[in-house]
């Protein structure tokens, strides 16, 4: 296919936007931890930009997108060999093939970064580095292949995932649960209050995430066309509606509409619309947003009942939001919006798509949980320092003990 400068420009811009989300996520999470752990949180996220990007170029892109297997890629694109000249089998776009590699790279960067919210304040940086590199290969690459590569078994089955509801959010969300189970609770949790140290920082991150998400979702059209426009509209409306949903239930149940609630609701909406973005139309994003805003508000408090310490609610927001979005897509999908999609229950497509969505959700849940859990148990045994910082380090704060830095020094010393 001829390269189109408009399409290429949209994917260039979208790649930049998705890259920007990882710093945004770092700030979103960074503001929520206590001041003594802010750098450790920022670092785990920025490090993903470093390690994942290089690993992606070396081999992971190829494992995710190379070849025509149903289960996993091959080594055709390793060391970027064929990447500048060829798309993965079954992909045909009016952009330079290397740009497709770059765009997908940014998804691989942010997916494990999402997990950092669950492990806040207690995982050693060294353990995170090992986890990150291995998880990318053993979990991200296969799941991405199943869903995003045209030869993947879930893709072939007809499960839909426009921009990563299963691959990114459910995958990271369930992995976050697995890691936090192995890791254990923060010392003092849930008795000791651990309030966010800087909600303005969290809101800077929210703004960047929302902005970057246009690249994530509308960019997934991989062209500057009407599907991209629809995806952008859906993305924005779902975020907006989910914010309203969260604030409404919060006000009803707790008496206060909170700033953190507004941010959390918006992110929940962005998560839920991710699989749907280019497949639904009309007022569907508003409905999806309202629903997910309410559900995620309720979901974030489950951890207190079950006693796992998902510090910043990766499970409550990304896992639950991702499932809600992926399943609602089975209801709202509309081929009038995107001929490449399927019709959902409400558009007269019957329960076929919904069933495939259930399969994709379950497959991701089971595979990611099992492998991630095993990986954590393994690392805990193998790594000399284990997964966790010492009690004393946790008390002092990871910024000093892991990185020999402090976040803030407002007063001269």
């Amino acid at each position, binding site marked *: 296919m001829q390269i189109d400068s408009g399409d290429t420009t949209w994917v260039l811009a979208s790649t930049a936007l998705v890259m920007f989300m990882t710093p945004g996520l770092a700030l979103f999470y960074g503001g929520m931890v206590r001041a003594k752990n802010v750098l450790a949180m920022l670092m785990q996220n920025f490090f993903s930009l470093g390690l994942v990007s290089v690993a992606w170029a070396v081999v992971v892109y190829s494992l995710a997108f190379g070849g025509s297997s149903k289960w996993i890629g091959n080594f055709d694109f390793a060391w970027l060999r064929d990447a500048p000249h060829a798309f993965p089998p079954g992909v045909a776009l009016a952009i330079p093939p290397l740009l497709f590699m770059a765009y997908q790279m940014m998804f691989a960067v942010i997916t494990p970064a999402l997990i950092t919210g669950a492990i806040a304040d207690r995982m050693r940086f060294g353990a995170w580095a090992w986890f990150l590199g291995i998880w990318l290969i053993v979990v991200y690459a296969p799941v991405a292949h199943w869903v995003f590569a045209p030869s993947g078994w879930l893709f072939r089955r007809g499960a839909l995932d426009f921009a990563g509801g299963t691959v990114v959010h459910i995958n990271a969300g369930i992995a976050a649960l697995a890691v936090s189970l192995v890791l254990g609770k923060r010392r003092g949790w*849930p008795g000791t*209050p651990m*309030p*966010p140290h800087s909600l303005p920082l969290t809101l800077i991150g929210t703004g960047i995430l929302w902005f970057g998400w246009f690249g994530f979702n509308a960019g997934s059209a991989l062209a500057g066309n009407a599907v991209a426009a629809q995806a952008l509209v859906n993305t924005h409306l779902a975020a907006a509606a989910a914010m309203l949903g969260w604030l409404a239930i*919060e006000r009803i*149940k*707790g008496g*206060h509409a*909170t700033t*953190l*609630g507004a941010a*959390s609701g918006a992110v929940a909406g962005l998560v839920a619309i991710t699989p749907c973005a280019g497949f639904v139309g009309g007022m569907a994003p508003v409905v999806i947003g309202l629903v997910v805003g309410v559900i995620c*508000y309720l979901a*974030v*408090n489950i951890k*207190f009942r079950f006693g796992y310490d998902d510090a910043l*609610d990766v499970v*409550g927001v990304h896992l639950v939001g991702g499932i809600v979005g992926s399943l609602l897509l089975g209801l709202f999908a509309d081929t009038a919006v995107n001929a490449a999609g399927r019709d959902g229950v409400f558009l007269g497509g019957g329960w076929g798509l919904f069933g495939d969505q259930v399969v994709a959700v379950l497959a991701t849940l089971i595979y990611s949980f099992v492998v991630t859990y095993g990986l954590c148990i393994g690392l805990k045994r193998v790594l000399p320092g284990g997964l966790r910082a010492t009690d004393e380090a946790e008390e002092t704060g990871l910024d000093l003990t892991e990185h020999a830095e402090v976040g803030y020094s407002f007063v001269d010393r």
Partner: protein
Amino acid sequence: MKLVVAIIKPFKLDDVKSAVQDLGVQGLTVTEVQGFGRQRGHTEVYRGAEYTIDFVPKVKLEILVDDADATGVAERIMESARTGKIGDGKVWVIPIEGAYRIRTGEAGADAL
């Protein structure tokens, strides 16, 4: 020499400062502190989880005065810091053995 110490509500600082200046006090030292007492703290809510904070922001004043002025200054602080609502704070007076001005080495009342 005495050190008059007062714990007051932060927004009363300016009033108290002016009030003691009227009495001839030329200097004082202020510290941000957190008070715990009869006055209730507040509740914060993050993602539905409630945190109760018992501490209330207060301001501590330390004023070095001549023996004779201690009671007058303490009283003036009380008048000017009073709102009548719980949490107005405390005043106490500490005996001091020596006081000096670093710049000149002057001691006692001259150091003020």
